[in-house]
């Protein structure tokens, strides 16, 4: 299978008339799949997305993540998920997805008067 890849660099404008270089690549069926890596640091409670890497299976993905992303003590727990299982929202639908929330400030809990005794809100 031939895939056209258009390569953009930082600052490039993704339009057809741009001068970004294009090249063809053979889809390599033997290449290892891509995995998204989530790391929980000592400080944080949540796993945070830190990047992606290639690995043959989930176990190898965890070990690769350990070597690539936690070598400077960045984390105490690792999650991996194969990238193909992530469904992302489409940037072109940003208008209908997010803009309706812009003028609905009453959804922010900022209109309440909190008693002085309540902390950490």
């Amino acid at each position, binding site marked *: 299978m031939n895939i056209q890849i258009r390569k953009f660099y930082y600052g490039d404008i993704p339009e057809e008339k741009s001068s970004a270089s294009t090249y063809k690549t053979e889809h390599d069926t033997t290449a*290892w799949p891509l995995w998204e890596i989530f790391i929980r640091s000592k400080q944080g409670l949540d796993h945070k997305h830190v990047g992606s*890497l*290639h*690995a*043959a299976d989930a*176990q*190898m993905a965890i*070990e*690769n993540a350990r*070597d*690539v992303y936690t*070598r400077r003590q960045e984390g105490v727990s690792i999650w991996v998920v194969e990238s193909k299982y992530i469904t992302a929202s489409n940037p072109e639908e940003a208008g209908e997805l997010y803009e309706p929330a812009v003028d609905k400030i009453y959804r922010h809990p900022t209109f309440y008067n909190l008693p002085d005794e309540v902390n950490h809100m």
Partner: protein
Amino acid sequence: MENKLIDHILHLADTTLILAQRNAEWCGHGPILEQDIAITNISLDLLGQSRNFYQYAAILIGGDTDEDKLAYLRKEREFKNLLLVEQPNGDWGQTILRQYFFSQYQYLLFEKLQNSKDEQLAAISAKALKEIKYHLRWSSEWVVRLGDGTGESRSRMLKAIDELWRYTGEMFVPAAYETAVDIISLKNEWEQKVKTIFEESSLPLPENVFMQTGGKQGVHTEHLGYILAELQYVQRAYPNSTW
């Protein structure tokens, strides 16, 4: 007694230094970025272990000896590393198998050494054991992956076994200075562990192979000289230079 301990520490230091150097040769050449980082991380772990041993040996030797002098200014015949670790990287399979053979041995050995009567030796070994556990896990998974992988990967593993097996016997032949732990007693368990991994990998366990020895006494294969030439070059060419 003191000399035996020094020689034993140097043997442990040299073995980890030379394997660190060999694995570091992969830096920038790994089969894939993630594994390039993995093998060089292991290299750095081993280098850290060898530094601990050299520093301790330097204290025992005394005078103006330090870790750098021990690593950079001793000659081939003074190095006491295992023959296994000086063998060339070959392909990825050969590097993996060398690491697995060594990590499996090092794990069993350091489990014993961490209970050594010598407190410093025990402390260094206990600290290293966590790293070794990971090296063992990483390398044994790779042995299974390649041995039980494609026809190509399997044939490369068979070739690697053929290259390296003859250097595994030396690990269990105690040198005169290896009194801190009963090396011979590790042999059976090492063979059992290797057998299990090889069965999982559908790789055959070699039988009746003549085992090479000599590394522990400073009699090496032709490869060590080249390793030291590269490792010690700067300190030999520009004595006492620092950076």
